[in-house]
């Protein structure tokens, strides 16, 4: 009887550890949606169309087959990998040809064997227009033009 009483608490401790440990290390899952300003640690598995704005994701990202992952103004560490048929867009909207100009960073490498990858560092159309304008300070003044 005493042996049973000693063994019982030990069993409870082991059971608690087994229950808690996998949850603490498991990657988060995104099944779809638009997210702003979130921090994901421990990795992310994408099982839908997932768009992240201004977010930080660490632990790596896996895009499952046929699904889409888009980041805007965000950072990913731990790399990005996909399963065949996936889509990965950076500063570019999913399933389109639209440049957003919201630049991001990815560390840890990218391994892609999917359907569509768009890593688009170009400025947005509005940004291009504003940058194409020469600032007034660099233009010759009226007096300078007259003196020429």
């Amino acid at each position, binding site marked *: 009887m005493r042996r049973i009483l000693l063994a019982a608490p030990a069993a409870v401790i082991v059971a608690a550890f087994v229950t808690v440990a996998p949850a603490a290390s498991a990657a988060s899952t995104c099944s779809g949606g638009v997210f702003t300003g979130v921090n994901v640690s421990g990795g992310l598995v994408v099982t839908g169309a997932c768009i992240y704005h201004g977010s930080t994701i660490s632990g790596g990202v896996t895009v499952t087959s046929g699904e889409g992952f888009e980041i805007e103004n965000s950072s990913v560490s731990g790399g990005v990998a996909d399963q065949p048929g996936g889509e990965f867009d950076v500063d570019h909207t999913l399933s389109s040809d639209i440049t957003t100009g919201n630049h991001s960073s990815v560390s840890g490498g990218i391994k892609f064997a999917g359907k*569509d990858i768009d890593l688009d560092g170009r400025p947005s159309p509005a940004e291009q227009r504003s940058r194409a304008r020469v600032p007034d300070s660099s233009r010759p003044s009226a007096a300078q033009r007259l003196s020429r």
Partner: protein
Amino acid sequence: MSGVTGTFIPVLIGDPGEVVQAGPVPDCPGNTFTGSLTVTNSNNVEIESNMVGGSVTISDSTLVQLAGNTIKGSAQCTNVTSAMDGDAAPNTVQGSNNCP
């Protein structure tokens, strides 16, 4: 993939090869990718105006646009069909480069 502590790099504005540069920001790439970039068996690949810290390897892929990037490593393309749009700028590759 192993977990790596993330470092958020704020917005970098730029577009290599842009005809007109205005303002205080020098010509610089948009996104920053640390590590290598490997693309295989894909049919729509656009990698444009980025900073890539490692090498770029693209194989067995179609409709590939690799333009305007600064690549610290090499750029290797095998069995690739390119599809350049009108604003394509050349890449700056520090290592070897056999990509179209």
